């Protein structure tokens, strides 16, 4: 891991280069049916106060009982982050008053979290990987929601989120650019989705980032940091870091000092602003929650969860490179989502050539899905159908161009691609005689172009196009090429 940013990542200020240092606290909602300490539903949405038990509403005399699945999810996630799993951890109360915090405290883990140090390998670009250290992961309760827009003088409180399990994942200040930060969140999201411990849905708030940003001259000690709260998309995380770093640099270059504070990113205005009103004298008075015994389990429990863990993205990527001979970039793209990787492997099981399948998915099918706002799971074409298409391309049964037409047909009226090709006569013409006739026809019809082509060999493309046109795109382009070269003498 590099201590300091590569020169290319430095930010140019008026008085020289600056390095930005970024750490992140990610709140990831645990995938579970019920809440962390109550039997109410953890499902997103719902009518106001419908997913609320008397425990969540902090009625007098209510007590928390921990949900075993939330514990398992935290352990699985810790394993996925290559982190130390603490066999004994403690729940603490974080005390503060807020209308969406019914107990007057959040049950969290302060001194003894369930997961300790770990690390995430982040692909910043096809050629750059960095390691980001994980400081800790702990379990805690989400708060409810205060709505401020329904009235000018009052706020409305809905406790549906109150008590839903969150994992707070705290990184070390190991990131040195907005790009690295974006890539880190994206990678973390991938890991969580693989494990199934968080759905990673940022729009619904299942994944929220608090971003700590500071700047310094290269080689200097860490500067004062500001925390940008609750940034809710990967794109905004990048933007927030850029504008916050520039804001801090401008202050420092003007001879000012950075005040340590909490800020909010306003994507509309493209700026961060101080949340000083909420800053007043925080003193959370953490102490161990006397309603809960320490959370304890043994190594056998951890080992059992480890055995059930799916193959994680880094391992899968390495295997794809090794087993299928994929370029690292292609392997990286395919493993971003577990569903895509599975889909790819289904195509191979069906007989597709791995490299061709990867090409086809990355260059054709993923783009097509993206355009329609679909995912690999919601897209209309099965892995078997895409595999058939790729196999026909590989065996020269259809051309790449025909394949593009074919996918459009299969997209809107699903069916066996082989049957469609057969029925519609879309097979590539590989019969040299037939192609030769077409080539001869084009040459004899365009004597002027033939002359031009002798002087300017790039004209060959024009001839290829003409032949393809007359054969309805079915001629094997390679054969067309070879014949044209021979006949034109270039």
């Amino acid at each position, binding site marked *: 891991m590099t201590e300091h940013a590569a020169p290319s990542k430095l930010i140019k200020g008026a008085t020289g280069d600056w390095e930005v240092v970024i750490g992140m606290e990610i709140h990831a909602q645990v995938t579970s049916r019920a809440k962390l300490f109550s039997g109410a539903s953890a499902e997103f949405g719902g009518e106001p106060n419908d997913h609320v038990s008397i425990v969540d509403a902090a009625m007098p005399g209510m007590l928390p*009982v921990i949900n075993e699945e939330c514990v398992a999810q935290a352990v699985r996630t810790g394993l996925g982050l290559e982190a130390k799993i603490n066999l004994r951890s403690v729940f603490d109360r974080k005390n503060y008053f807020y209308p969406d915090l019914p107990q007057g405290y959040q049950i969290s883990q302060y001194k003894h979290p369930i997961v300790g140090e770990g690390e995430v390998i982040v692909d910043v670009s096809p050629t750059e990987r960095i390691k980001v250290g994980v400081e800790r992961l702990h379990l805690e309760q989400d708060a409810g929601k205060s709505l401020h827009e329904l009235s000018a003088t009052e706020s409305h409180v809905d406790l549906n989120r109150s008590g839903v399990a969150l994992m707070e994942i705290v990184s070390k200040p190991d990131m040195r650019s907005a790009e690295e930060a974006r890539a880190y969140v994206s990678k973390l999201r991938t890991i969580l989705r693989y494990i199934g411990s968080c759905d990673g849905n940022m729009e619904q708030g299942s994944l929220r980032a608090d971003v700590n940003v500071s700047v310094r001259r290269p080689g200097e000690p860490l500067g004062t940091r500001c925390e940008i709260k609750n940034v809710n998309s990967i794109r905004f995380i990048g933007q927030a870091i850029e504008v916050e770093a520039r804001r801090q640099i401008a202050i420092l270059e003007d001879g000012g000092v950075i005040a340590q504070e909490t800020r909010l990113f306003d994507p509309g205005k493209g700026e961060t602003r101080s949340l000083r009103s909420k800053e007043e004298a925080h003193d959370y008075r953490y102490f161990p929650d006397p309603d809960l015994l320490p959370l304890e389990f043994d190594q056998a429990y951890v080992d059992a969860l480890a055995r059930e863990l799916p193959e994680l993205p880094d391992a899968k990527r390495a295997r794809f490179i090794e087993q299928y001979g994929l370029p690292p970039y292609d392997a990286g793209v395919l493993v971003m989502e577990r569903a895509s990787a599975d889909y790819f492997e289904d195509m191979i099981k069906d007989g597709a050539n791995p490299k061709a399948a990867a090409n086809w998915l990355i260059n054709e099918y993923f783009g097509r899905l993206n355009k329609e706002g679909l995912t690999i799971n919601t897209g209309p074409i099965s892995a078997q159908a895409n595999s058939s298409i790729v196999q026909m391309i590989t065996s020269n049964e259809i051309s790449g161009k025909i394949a593009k037409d074919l996918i459009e047909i299969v997209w809107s009226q699903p069916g066996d691609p082989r049957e469609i090709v057969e029925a519609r006569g879309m097979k590539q013409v590989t019969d040299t005689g037939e192609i030769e006739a077409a080539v001869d026809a084009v040459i004899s019809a365009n004597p002027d172009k033939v002359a031009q082509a002798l002087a300017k060999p790039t004209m060959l493309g024009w001839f290829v196009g003409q032949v393809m046109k007359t054969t309805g795109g079915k001629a094997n382009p390679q054969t067309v090429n070879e014949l044209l070269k021979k006949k034109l003498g270039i």
Partner: protein
Amino acid sequence: MSVDSAVVRRIAHLSRIAVEDEEVERLRGELNAILAFVEELDAVDVSGVEPLTSVLPMKMKKRADVVTDGGIADDILVNAPEREDHFFVVPKVVE
């Protein structure tokens, strides 16, 4: 250790309990009386002693991940001092 009136006000605010100016002096006296009473603990040798977390020699039981509760918004709101359409209503919170 003893508290002065500024500390009394700070604790009162942290506790979200309004104190009138004329109460501060009396509260300061009472709190200091309690602090003086517990001061003897400073002399106890606690080196090497773990703070007690629970008197119970047992492991914490866990619940199964099953939805067993909720769908009782009327019950949740029945005692609310102010409510509207199944929301609790509070004075405007300024962010």
